[in-house]
C-alpha cells in the first residue's frame, strides 16, 4: 500500500511540529516528509487540504467486554468502533469475566486485538489491581506487566480498602505503571443512580453525592504523598472539588494525572430529566459548575487526558426503568467530534492541545513509546477533518451497542481515517 | 352571512308564556311537574318557563339543570373537548312529571343523551320534551311535546337562539352560510 497524503496540517506534539506537509507512506512506513512532495502514480493520492494529520489517538479507558460479555461488545466490534472513531490504540479495562487479573487473560486480550480489524488498533490490557477485582488481594501485577498490562485498575469499582491501595501503589511503583482509580467512596453512593443535587431532588431519584468522588481522591492523594514513587491516575474525573485536589497535588509535585470523558464535559445532570437511561453512568453527569471546572482543567492542563469510558450495553439492558439500568455509555465513535465541537471550536483548548490529550499525554502516562512522525518510522496516524459538520447516527455505529445520549446531535469535526501496523482505514 | 330574525324579544316572551300555559293546562295546575333544562340555553329557557308556570299555577315548581356532556355520542375524536359542567338537580326525579327543556330540537341526539342522563338519576313517572324551536332533520325517533315554533330549515342553515342571560338580547335568528361557503360556528 502506497499513499501520498497531500497538503494536510501535521500537528505533532512529539516533535513540536504544526505545519502543512506532505507525507509519503510505503508499506506502513513513512518514506518521506516535506512540502509539496511529488510521487509517481503508484501512490494513491489523498487530498488532505484543510485536514489534520496527528499521531495515532489512544483511548486509555474502554470496556471491550471480552471475555465474558460478548453480547455487549467484542474485541473485534470494539476495535471497529475505535478505528471508526479515529483511534489506533485502546486500553481495555479488566472488568471482564474472567477479569484481567492474570497473565492468560491479559495475553488473550492483547493477542485477540492483533487478530482483528487488520491490526489497525493496538489493544493494551489494563490489569486488575486485585484478584477478581474483589478488592481483597493484590493481583499478580508483575506477571500482568510482563503480559502487556499498561496500567492497573479495578474500574467499575473503587479500590476501597486503604490498605490495599497503599500496597498497590507500592507494588506498581516498581514498574512505573500507574494505578487508575475509579474514585468513589461507596458507602456514600449506595443505590444512587444520578448526581445528588437539585435535579435528583426534582426527580425523586436516589443520588450519588460529589463528595463520594472527592473523598476517595483526597484519600489516595494522601497515600501518594506517603508513597511518592508511585503513580496515580484518576479515571473519569467529574467533580470540580476532586479536580481541585488533583491540581494542588500536581503543584506539590506528586505524580497525579487524570482524565475526563466527553460526556462529563458536555452534559449536565439536567439531561437526566427525561429519564433516558443513556444518561446514566458512573460517575454520573454533574452540574454546570462541574462542567465549567472540567473545561478549565482541560484548558490549564490539570486534565491531561480525554478518555471515553466506552461502556457498551445492549438495548435490552438499557431499555428498562432508570434505577434498574446498568451504568455507562459508548463513546469511541463520538469522542473526537464532541471534543472538537465542545473544546476546540468553543476555544477552550487548541487543536494541538487536543492531540496531546488524545495521543501524546496518555501514552506518556502509560509509559508507551511516543509515536514518532519521521522518515523511516512506522506510520501510526490519525487523520481528522476539524470542520466537517455531521449528525450522530446510532444506526451507523460500528460498536455492537447503541447506548449513547448523543444520537441526533450536530457535531463539528471528526476523524476521517487511521494508519497503523501497515493497515489503512479511510472513510 | 345572511341573518333573518324569526322571533324578536317580545315574541320570545310571548312564546315562553304560551308554552307555560300549555304545560299547566296539560297537567292540571302543574301537579307533580318538575322542569329540567339542558345546559346551556335550555337552562335559561327552563328557568323562565318555571317562573311563569309558578305564577299561573301558584305552585312551587322545582327546576334542575342537566349537563349531558358525559352522555354525548360524539365525545371521542373531537379536537376540542367540551367543558364538563355539573348536573344540578336537587330533587328526586323518581315519580315526577319531568318537562325536559332545550332551546333547539335538531337531530335529537342531545335529547337521547339527556334521556339517558335523566334516567340514571331515577325513574320519572313521565318525561315530556319542550323546545323553543323545532328545526327538523331528526336522526333519532324523537319528537317534542311542546313546541315554541317550527322552522323548516336546510342543513346548511343555522338557528341562533340569543338569550339575555348569555347573549345580551332575546331573539331567534336564522343564518344562511356565505356564498363562498364559509363555516359559521354553532
Amino acid at each position: 500500500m502506497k499513499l501520498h497524503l497531500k497538503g494536510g496540517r501535521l500537528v505533532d506534539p512529539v516533535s513540536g511540529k504544526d505545519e502543512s506537509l506532505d507525507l509519503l507512506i510505503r508499506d506502513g512506513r513513512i518514506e518521506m516528509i516535506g512540502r509539496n512532495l511529488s510521487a509517481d502514480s503508484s501512490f494513491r493520492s489523498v487530498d488532505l487540504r484543510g485536514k489534520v494529520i496527528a499521531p495515532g489517538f489512544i483511548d486509555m479507558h474502554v470496556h471491550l467486554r471480552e471475555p465474558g460479555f460478548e453480547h455487549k461488545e467484542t474485541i473485534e466490534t470494539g476495535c471497529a468502533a475505535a478505528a471508526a472513531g479515529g483511534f489506533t490504540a485502546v486500553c481495555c479495562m479488566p472488568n471482564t469475566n474472567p477479569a484481567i487479573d492474570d497473565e492468560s487473560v491479559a495475553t488473550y486480550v492483547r493477542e485477540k486485538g492483533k487478530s482483528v480489524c487488520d491490526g489497525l488498533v493496538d489493544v493494551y490490557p489494563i490489569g486488575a489491581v486485585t484478584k477478581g477485582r474483589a478488592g481483597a488481594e493484590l493481583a499478580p501485577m508483575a506477571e500482568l506487566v510482563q503480559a502487556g498490562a499498561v496500567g492497573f485498575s479495578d474500574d467499575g469499582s473503587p479500590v476501597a480498602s486503604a490498605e490495599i491501595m497503599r500496597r498497590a501503589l507500592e507494588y506498581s511503583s516498581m514498574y512505573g505503571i500507574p494505578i487508575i482509580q475509579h474514585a468513589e467512596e461507596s458507602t456514600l453512593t449506595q443505590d444512587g443512580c444520578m448526581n445528588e443535587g437539585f435535579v435528583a431532588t426534582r426527580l425523586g431519584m436516589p443520588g450519588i453525592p460529589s463528595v463520594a468522588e472527592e473523598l476517595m481522591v483526597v484519600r489516595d492523594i494522601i497515600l501518594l504523598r506517603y508513597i511518592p514513587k508511585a503513580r496515580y491516575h484518576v479515571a473519569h474525573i467529574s467533580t470540580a472539588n476532586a479536580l481541585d485536589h488533583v491540581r494542588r497535588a500536581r503543584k506539590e509535585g506528586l505524580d497525579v494525572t487524570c482524565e475526563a470523558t466527553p460526556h462529563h464535559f458536555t452534559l449536565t445532570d439536567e439531561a437526566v430529566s427525561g429519564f433516558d437511561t443513556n444518561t446514566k453512568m458512573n460517575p454520573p453527569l454533574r452540574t454546570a459548575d462541574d462542567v465549567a471546572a472540567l473545561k478549565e482543567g482541560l484548558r490549564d492542563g490539570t486534565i491531561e487526558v480525554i478518555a471515553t469510558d466506552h461502556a457498551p450495553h445492549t438495548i435490552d439492558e438499557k431499555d428498562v426503568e432508570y434505577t434498574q439500568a446498568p451504568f455507562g455509555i459508548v463513546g469511541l465513535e463520538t469522542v473526537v467530534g464532541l471534543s472538537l465541537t465542545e473544546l476546540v471550536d468553543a476555544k477552550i483548548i487548541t487543536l494541538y492541545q487536543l492531540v496531546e490529550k488524545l495521543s501524546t499525554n496518555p501514552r506518556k502516562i502509560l509509559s508507551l513509546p511516543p509515536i514518532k512522525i519521521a522518515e523511516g518510522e512506522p506510520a501510526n496516524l490519525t487523520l481528522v477533518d476539524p470542520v466537517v459538520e455531521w449528525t450522530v447516527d446510532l444506526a451507523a455505529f460500528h460498536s455492537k451497542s447503541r447506548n449513547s445520549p448523543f444520537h441526533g446531535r450536530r457535531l463539528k469535526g471528526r476523524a476521517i481515517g487511521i494508519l497503523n501496523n501497515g493497515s489503512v482505514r479511510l472513510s | 352571512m345572511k341573518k333573518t330574525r324569526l322571533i324578536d324579544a317580545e315574541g320570545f316572551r310571548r312564546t315562553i308564556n304560551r308554552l307555560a300555559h300549555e304545560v299547566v293546562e296539560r297537567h292540571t295546575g302543574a301537579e307533580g311537574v318538575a322542569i329540567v333544562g339542558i345546559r346551556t340555553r335550555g337552562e335559561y329557557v327552563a328557568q323562565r318557563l318555571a317562573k311563569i308556570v309558578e305564577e299561573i299555577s301558584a305552585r312551587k315548581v322545582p327546576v334542575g339543570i342537566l349537563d349531558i356532556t358525559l352522555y354525548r355520542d360524539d365525545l371521542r375524536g373531537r379536537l376540542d373537548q367540551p367543558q364538563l359542567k355539573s348536573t344540578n338537580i336537587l330533587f328526586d326525579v323518581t315519580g315526577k312529571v319531568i318537562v325536559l327543556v332545550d332551546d333547539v330540537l335538531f337531530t335529537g341526539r342531545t335529547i337521547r343523551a339527556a334521556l339517558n342522563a335523566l334516567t340514571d338519576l331515577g325513574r320519572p313517572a313521565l318525561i315530556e320534551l319542550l323546545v323553543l324551536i323545532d328545526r327538523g332533520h331528526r336522526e333519532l325517533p324523537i319528537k317534542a311535546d311542546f313546541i315554541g315554533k317550527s322552522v323548516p330549515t336546510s342543513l346548511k342553515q343555522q338557528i341562533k337562539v340569543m338569550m339575555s342571560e348569555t347573549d345580551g338580547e332575546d331573539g331567534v335568528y336564522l343564518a344562511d352560510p356565505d356564498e363562498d361557503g364559509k363555516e359559521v360556528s354553532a
Partner: protein
Amino acid sequence: MKLKSRHLLGLEGMTKEELRLILDTAVSFREILDRPIKKVPPLQGKTVVNLFFESSTRTRISFELAERRLSADVVSFSTAASSVSKGETLKDTARNIEAMKIDMVVIRHAAPGSAHFLSRVVDANVINAGDGGHEHPTQGLLDMYTLREKFGSLEGLRVCIVGDITHSRVARSNIYGLTTMGAKVSVCGPETLIPREIERLGVKVYHHLEDVIPEVDVLNVLRIQLERQKSGLFPSLREYHRFFGVTKEKVSRAPKPITIMHPGPINRDVELSADLADGEHSVILQQVTNGVAVRMAVLYLLGT
C-alpha cells in the same frame, strides 16, 4: 380546552389552566358520587389496565372505582399475580398487555420515571399512580381539590408537608401543583429526610414543628416508613414521634385551627396522633372520597 399531554406523568410543568381544568372537571364528578346511580358512560368500550408493581390497595381501589364509574372495562394486576416476578421486564409486560388492545394504563412502580418509561414503549394513555420517590400526580390533585373545596382558593394558602420529603412522591406532586396554583408551601422534617436544594422548588424548609405551626393553615402529614430508620436516616420511631409527630398538643399552639391531611395509610400515633386524624379539622376521609372524583376527571380528560 384540552390537556396538553395524552399522559398524566406528573404535575411538574403543568400549567395553572391545566390544573384548574382537572379540578373543575372533578367537581362535576364529585357530584355524581352523591347520586344513587354513580355510573356515567363516557369511557364505555374503553379498557383500562391497572399495573401495580408495588402493593397499594387504596390507590388501586380508588382508580378501579373511578374507572368503573366511567363505564370502562377494567383489568387490574399486581406483582404477585403477574409474570414480573419471573424476570420479565417492565417493557415486555407492558408490550404484552398492550398487544391485548388496551386504551389506558395506570401504573404504580418503585422506580422513579417508570411511568415516563412506559409512555415511551406503549401507545396507550399512561397515568402515573406513583413512581418511586418522584411523583404521585393524582394524590397531589386530590389534595389540591380537598383544600380548594375547604378554603375556596389555593392562592396564598399556607401548606406545610411534614415528614420524609426525600423519598416522598406525594410531597413532590404537592409541591409542584400547589406552588403553581399560588399556595405557599413549606416542608418540615429531619435534615436527613430533606433532599438537597429543595428550596429551589420554591419551598421553605423547617426542622421544628413549633416553628412552622404558627405559620400555616394546613399540615399535610406524610407516612414515615420504618425502613428509613433501619437505613440510619433517623434514630428511632419514638424520637421521630416526639419531635416530628403531629399531635393535638403541638397544634393547639396555633392561633387558629390547622387543617390536617394525610395520604394514608396512617401510622397512628407515630407521625400523626389518632385524635387529630379523627378530629374535626381532619379532612383525611374527604381526601379519600375526592380521590375517586379527581381520578374520574383525569381518566375522562385523557380518555375521551
